[in-house]
């Protein structure tokens, strides 16, 4: 078995990369609901307490790529990444309200802003933020070291899962930082 690897090594470290998987998998509304932290017991508790249901991601990852390595590849991570990039945006809030009408309180979202201009990047590539969040084909790798490069150059990552255009020339959107 042989593997073809044609990549520019400078493209694989200290950067943020955007990949598109060949497999198109749309996320269900239930998965989105779980990504927003809404479970039956959450609904019950808020009903008992008579409090509006918040959108809240806890105090988890804020995707500060410095000194770190993230593979953002599920709806939870993409949603948080979008919020931290769009910075508690009305368009995003309204879309979440449409999808999950039970969410009424948007005041608990972290005010952290990760500095990636995802909006501009997605616009340039004709991808809506809703599609970005709701499709598992979109993968973002944030790497302030050489982790991703080492994984790829050690042949431990299967680049065949990505489309040709992104696998062999992953889109670097570090340059779009605000």
């Amino acid at each position, binding site marked *: *078995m*042989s593997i073809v690897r044609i990549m520019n090594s400078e493209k694989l470290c200290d950067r943020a990369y955007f990949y598109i998987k060949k497999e198109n998998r749309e996320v269900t509304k239930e998965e989105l609901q779980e990504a927003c932290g809404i479970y039956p017991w959450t609904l019950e508790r808020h009903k008992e307490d008579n409090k509006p249901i918040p959108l809240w991601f806890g105090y988890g990852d804020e995707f500060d790529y410095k000194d770190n390595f993230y593979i953002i590849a599920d709806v939870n991570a993409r949603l948080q990444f979008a919020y931290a990039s769009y910075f508690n945006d009305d368009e995003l809030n309204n879309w979440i309200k449409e999808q999950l009408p039970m969410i009424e309180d948007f005041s608990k979202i972290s005010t952290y802003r990760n500095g990636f201009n995802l909006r501009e990047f997605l616009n340039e590539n004709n991808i809506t933020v809703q599609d970005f969040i709701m499709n598992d084909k979109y993968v973002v790798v944030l790497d302030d070291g050489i982790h991703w490069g080492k994984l790829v150059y*050690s042949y431990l990552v299967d680049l065949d899962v990505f489309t040709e255009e992104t696998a062999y020339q992953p889109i670097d959107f570090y340059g779009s930082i605000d």
Partner: protein
Amino acid sequence: MKIQIRRNVFETNSSSMHSLVIRRNDITSVDDNNVEHPINRILTHDEMLTNIKRFMDKQGIVDFSYRNWYFGRSPFRIMTTFSEKVEYLLASYLYFRRYNEENQIGFDEAVALIKKLVPEVKDIKCPSDIGFDEAYYFSWKNQYGFSDEDFLTHTRYIAIQDGDEYGKWHDVYLYNLASEDVIEVDSMDFHNGEKEC
């Protein structure tokens, strides 16, 4: 029933997750000129010397004394190079020796091996602080039957440091990004299904 909760204590059972990855031997890569090369090979003396030289002075003293030899849960490390594996190996032996007074075998032999592989190395300075959560290296050796020389010189052996609260290596499998055709062994066994972490 009375439930007692200790105040101001947040406990986790997080632990390190180090993986030994062994790549299959029959995989080749194709270069720009369409020539096939095996992805696994044994490092040459020059490659090992070049790699370890940045830690070495003119007298041949390799100085690791300022390096972080706590091999715990973070940072995420992928140890592929000669010097990275030398550090992991020596730290494993030193840590083992500290807690096994009856059995002091290993460290001196490992240093001798490095000097044999790269005769320009005259001595090695190690950090005083060394830490591991578990002695992974020795269980890998027992389970997969390789020698220290194999580990250091053969590119098919790759050690990965991760923690179960981060799970970076686990994510590679979780999101179907692992080259399962290339990986013969992953000591964490993620490739045979999702491991709880």
